[in-house]
């Protein structure tokens, strides 16, 4: 393109304001017409109530389990008593213990578990659990309770709501289908924000700015809440205070989780990292940062060497005389191998700056530029394809789920 063809950005002049006002008024009118003529964005839903009833079951216990196992902790938590302790250190002791207490109290599965630890050279602390343990479980309310289960009287119910397809004719809707205000508003907001973001193509404007700010704000808020749960709660607290997490967010957390002192170290590093926010304590954050950088560099070095260096060399040095499965000459694979080899060599010569790019070296370097240009062209073509797909997906949404045109 020649000079001076840049897009003029609309300024806040009287004319531009009038133009934008007219566009907005026309769009609002169009949206009203679309809502009442095309049922634009209207979502109908069906809801089903799911209900679960809580049962308790009390069982007598008489079994030996590893002291640190989740099963042992769960049984103690449910009311069982520890009436004896024993250490198993060798295979012989394990065999003798099986015949001593019997397979009912010391099951085959537990024995195998202990055996593998003993073979690894780790003595196992065993506990004898006796008495009764009362456990709590939930079953669908319409399902019959199993023997020994007693209803506690606690019932938990909720509604599962699902949207009907946007193109389902009114006559085909189930009798219990209802109009969903919240989902309809959601579709309308998604459509309006899509149009607001697209309006940037006409130049910077308040609608784009508003949509951009809401997107950034909501994304940041969502990411923060999600990272807190998946990072702090699900990785750190779950290993430091499993009881607290079980009470707070995850009642079904397996009892195999136990206090693990190793996680104190990342906990301290995490607190040090936050010190970056302190006015005078910024330097404290350098230590965990140094750890992260060092660990990541070491972590990545070997994998990069293997997959991005050695394997790439191996991939380049292939036979130029390719054969198919029947042992016959394969022309296209041979051509492919030659193109790869020549392309790599030409590019390497282009990036070889210890010799002046003159004569044969200069010609080869120009060939390298040609190969690079083809690569960039292919990359650009694929990028364009990706961007068009994104636009297609948004238009799909606008035409189908919002305007119900198809």
């Amino acid at each position, binding site marked *: 393109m020649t000079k001076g063809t840049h897009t*003029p950005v609309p300024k806040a002049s009287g004319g531009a304001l009038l133009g934008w006002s007219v566009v907005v008024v026309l769009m609002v009118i169009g949206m009203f017409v679309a809502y009442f003529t095309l049922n634009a964005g209207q979502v109908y839903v069906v809801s089903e109530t799911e209900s679960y009833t809580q049962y308790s079951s009390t069982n007598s216990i008489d079994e030996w389990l590893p002291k640190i196992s989740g099963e042992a902790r769960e049984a103690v938590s449910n009311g069982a008593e520890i009436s004896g302790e024993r250490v198993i250190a060798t295979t012989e002791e394990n065999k003798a213990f099986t015949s001593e207490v019997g397979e009912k109290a010391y099951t085959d599965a537990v024995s195998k578990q202990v055996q593998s630890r003993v073979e690894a050279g780790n003595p196992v602390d065993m506990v004898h659990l006796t008495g009764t343990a009362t456990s709590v479980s939930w079953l669908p309310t319409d399902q019959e309770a199993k023997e020994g289960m007693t209803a506690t009287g606690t019932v938990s119910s909720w509604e599962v709501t699902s949207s009907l397809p946007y193109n389902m004719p009114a006559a085909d809707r189930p009798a219990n289908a209802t109009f969903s205000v919240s989902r309809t508003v959601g579709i309308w907001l998604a459509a309006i924000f899509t149009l607001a973001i697209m309006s940037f193509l006409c130049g910077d404007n308040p609608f784009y700015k508003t949509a951009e700010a809401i997107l950034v704000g909501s994304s940041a808020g969502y990411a923060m809440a999600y990272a807190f749960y998946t990072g702090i709660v699900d990785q750190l607290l779950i290993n430091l205070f499993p009881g607290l997490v079980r009470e707070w967010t995850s009642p*079904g957390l397996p009892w195999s989780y136990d206090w693990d002192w190793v996680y104190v170290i990342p906990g301290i590093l995490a607190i040090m990292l936050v010190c970056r926010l302190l006015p005078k304590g910024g330097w404290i954050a350098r230590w965990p940062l140094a750890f992260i950088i060092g660990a990541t560099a070491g*972590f*990545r070095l070997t*994998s990069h060497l293997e*997959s991005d260096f050695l394997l790439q060399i191996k991939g380049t040095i292939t036979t130029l005389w390719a054969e198919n499965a029947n042992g016959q000459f394969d022309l296209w694979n041979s051509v492919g191998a030659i193109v790869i080899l020549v392309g790599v060599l030409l590019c390497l010569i282009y990036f070889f700056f210890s010799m002046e790019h003159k004569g044969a070296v200069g010609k080869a370097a120009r060939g390298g530029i040609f190969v690079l240009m083809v690569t960039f062209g292919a990359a650009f073509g*694929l990028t364009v394809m990706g961007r068009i*797909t994104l*636009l297609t997906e948004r238009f*799909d949404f606008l035409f189908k789920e919002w305007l119900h045109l198809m």
Partner: protein
Amino acid sequence: MMNFLRNLDRRWIFLLMGVAVALPILLRFLPPNNATMMDRSVFDAIEDLPDGSRVLLSFDFDPGSQGELLPMANAFARHCGFKRHKVYFMCLWPLGEPFIEDAMKILETEFEGLKYGENFMSFGYKPGGEAVIKNIIVDWKQLFITDSRKQSLNKIPMTANIKSAKAMDLIVNVCAGDPGAKQWVQYAATPAGLPLVAGCTGVQAPLLYPYIPDPMAGLLAAIKGAAGYEQILLEQYPSLATDEMINARFSTTAAFQRMGPQFVAHLLMVVLILLGNLIFILDRRRGGA
């Protein structure tokens, strides 16, 4: 005329592009769709596994890339459903989890007898990127004790006996960036020799082609790759092409339906590039530029 083209406001081009994308959608224009050898090699990687094999499906993308990647993610899930493979879902991107739920819904509703925990399950999202891959290659349960629904892995039939990712017969990765296929190549396929195929966005494809065929068996590049894969899937499993399926979700999220806008938009781009170059050459000959 030449002067008008020379000073054409770029907003006219935006408008033209909008029309070029919108019209094929509204007119349901579908150009011929042919699968490539690369699409075939990805398809064969799943198809050639014995029925009921273990497949790890990692959805490492977010809603920003769903236009390109959701069709292929759903196609992978359907293919595994037809083959009755045991599918283990996971994601290294926090916003990948809703897509896993969608894929599990497809398996549950479209394929009779497939149940959570027996035929498919989800590990959900785990922060840590490549460190997660590195860990699960050695010891899965050191990192994941529960599934995404907080059930103990030892109580789920599919995972009770899984020690590490080496137990998988194939890893399928759908990715939009880092962490993604590159990390699966570096930390799973290369060191552990695990079979890997991937699907990626158009931007990523040139960076991943060097990993083919070793250690990555195949790559679906952007929407074109997904459309080719769907084409093979439709040929191999004609039940997908029934009216019922076409009226269901498959039709609205299918990649092959998005090839119409691609075709027309690319045609427009070619015309615009030729036109721009023509004007440039003419201007230079006249000594104007």
